């Protein structure tokens, strides 16, 4: 098996910034540019923060894999210069679970949207949190199904106008931090795309945690959500995020639900420790099987000869 040293680790511009080179570029597949995201969309901003988190955390890039589902945010996997998997709709988390279990040395990031993770993938989200699988989930929440034209999502605030609720939504939305905390996540934070440094820091912190981490990023969709709700363009979204966001670290997640025009509570809400799935699995097998337990690492020779 090849073992390639990734010299991007040494090239990180933490000491001597070269302002002719975008420090983020080394993490992107520049041959895939331009990307598909609309002007004013926040997803690219989150990728920028993610890249800065890679710089800050000094995480080993070769061991880092990124898994996305389907949707606008699902396209992140195609633009990052990492082992990356663009899976089926809603199934990024179970794919990532298999990846992590087969190769425990990998650091696995799930990077997907609110519809993908909490609607069609909602069952996987809560079960992965319950199991405390060691995954870092970045959920870009644009409050709508954007790729398909702006339909109501489980995260759409009540009374927002969407293409499938043209007279306004009336069903209650999921409060995602509350949901994943209740299901067992060890790290839960929320930021907006206005909070680029705080977001990068949270992603760095999540890399230090062992277990199911969940970072929600409120992100504008000017094309579909902002326009239909007369909320202006991407810049107007930034102004809204700046004015209405309240940093409340440790806020009870039951109190951080979002409304159409109201306050956005941001910050680190949960940071706790409990054993992750693989730690519990190994302990159980060691206790019950003793020396008969041969571990969970798959030997490469067994597969590749």
């Amino acid at each position, binding site marked *: 098996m090849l073992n390639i040293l990734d010299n991007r680790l040494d090239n990180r511009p933490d000491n001597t910034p070269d302002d002719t080179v975008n420090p983020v570029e080394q993490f992107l597949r520049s041959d895939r540019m331009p990307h598909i995201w609309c002007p004013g969309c926040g997803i690219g901003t989150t990728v920028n923060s993610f890249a800065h988190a890679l710089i800050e955390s000094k995480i080993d890039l070769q061991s880092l894999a990124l898994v996305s589902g389907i949707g606008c945010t699902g396209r992140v996997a195609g633009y990052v210069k990492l082992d990356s998997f663009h899976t089926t709709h809603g*199934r990024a988390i179970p794919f990532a679970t298999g990846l992590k279990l087969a190769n425990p040395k990998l650091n696995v990031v799930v990077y997907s949207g609110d519809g993908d993770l909490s609607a069609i993938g909602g069952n996987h989200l809560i079960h992965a949190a319950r199991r405390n699988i060691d995954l870092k989930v970045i959920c870009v929440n644009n409050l709508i199904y954007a790729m398909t034209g702006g339909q109501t999502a489980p995260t759409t605030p009540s009374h927002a106008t969407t293409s499938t609720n043209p007279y306004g939504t009336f069903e209650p939305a999921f409060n995602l931090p509350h949901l994943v905390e209740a299901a067992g996540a060890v790290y839960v934070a929320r930021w907006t795309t206005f909070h680029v440094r705080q977001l990068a820091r949270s992603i760095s912190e999540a890399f230090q945690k062992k277990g199911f981490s969940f970072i929600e990023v409120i992100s504008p969709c000017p094309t579909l959500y902002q326009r239909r709700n007369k909320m202006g363009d991407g810049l107007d979204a930034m102004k809204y995020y700046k004015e209405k966001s309240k940093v409340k670290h440790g806020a009870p997640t039951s109190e951080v639900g979002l409304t159409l025009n109201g306050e956005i509570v941001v910050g680190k809400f949960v940071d706790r420790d409990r054993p992750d799935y693989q730690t519990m699995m190994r302990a159980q097998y060691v206790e019950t099987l003793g020396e*008969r337990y041969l571990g969970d690492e798959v030997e490469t020779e067994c597969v590749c000869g």
Partner: protein
Amino acid sequence: MKADPRGVLTGTHFLDGDHACCEGALAAGARFAAGYPITPSTEVVERFAARVPTVGGCFIQMEDELAASIALQGGVWGGAKAFTVTSGPGFSLMMEHIGYAAMTETPCVFVDVQRGGPSTGLPTLPAQADMMQARWGSHGDYEIIALCPNSPQECFDLTIQAFNFAEEFRVPVMFMMDEVVGHMTEKVVIPPADEIDVTPRKHTHKSVEDYLPYSTNGDMVPEMAHAGDGYNFHVTGLTHDEHGYPNMTPQVQDKLVRRLQNKIRSAADRICLFEEDRLDDADVVVVSYGITSRVAQRAIDAARDQGLKVGKLRLITAWPFPEKKIAELAAHVKAFVVPELNLGQMVHEVKRAADGNAKTFAVSHAGGAVHNPDEILNTIVEASRC
């Protein structure tokens, strides 16, 4: 290469088909499985869950079949040989990920222990009514391989074959058992590890600069890398080019989808396994598979006792369909008799391949039991007179 001895339970055993399937998977090198319980298949992963910690690997019971069928593919890209096991209702839920495995060329095995359907149907009773679903259940044009064991011994032997085909062609392989084969207990001989041939993953040896994840070198099956190897590759279910990058053009679609189809079809002669008996002088050929082939054997023997010239063609490989073999036989036999535990699935393939050169008689059965051999015998008699 030879099997990893840790996974091989060498010896003579008294096993049911489900357990034998599990032992075949372990012998083939499977070290990861994701499952969701469903009768009559659950015993396969129950045994795997008990065995795999002592072999090196793990099993996880997922929250549903959607999760199981994609978690196993995460396991494959993480470097394991992996499989999942289900029955009809779960197989229906797995269809999307059979398509994903076909599109991303993820080598893996889906075991379907068939029961009566549609819907919840007959959870504890047999059928063979998922045969067309195995071939066509996911959307779009794609090609898979499907094998049909008819005994616990074959559940062991052919599970290894299923994994070997999966690795050689980078394709999802459907292992089409049925409730009777799954729960039938018989002698199963597991040979020593050094007598078991196992196909290694087609892992690339190219440098990072030279590696193109979906480039082929004439044999139509690209080389694979695993996450963590350093290649920074991309995998997507979207139509993709040789870089693995999405490309939404009819030209790339045509090139990709035709290759996915041709890599299997061009090797069909080698993939199509079958058992034949008394075909030399046969006027009538009974074409059967799985448990029905064992019932058909009795009908064939009885027909021969009556002096009827009847032969046997047992399909071990159902997909790709052995149409060349059927066409050859059709040139000099009068008729095919096709008993199966469904209301007519593979019989249509036999008819298509016979192309009017021989008649085709279905012996249908809605499932819940096996045929009475007399039903097959009566049809053989009828076919002999045509």
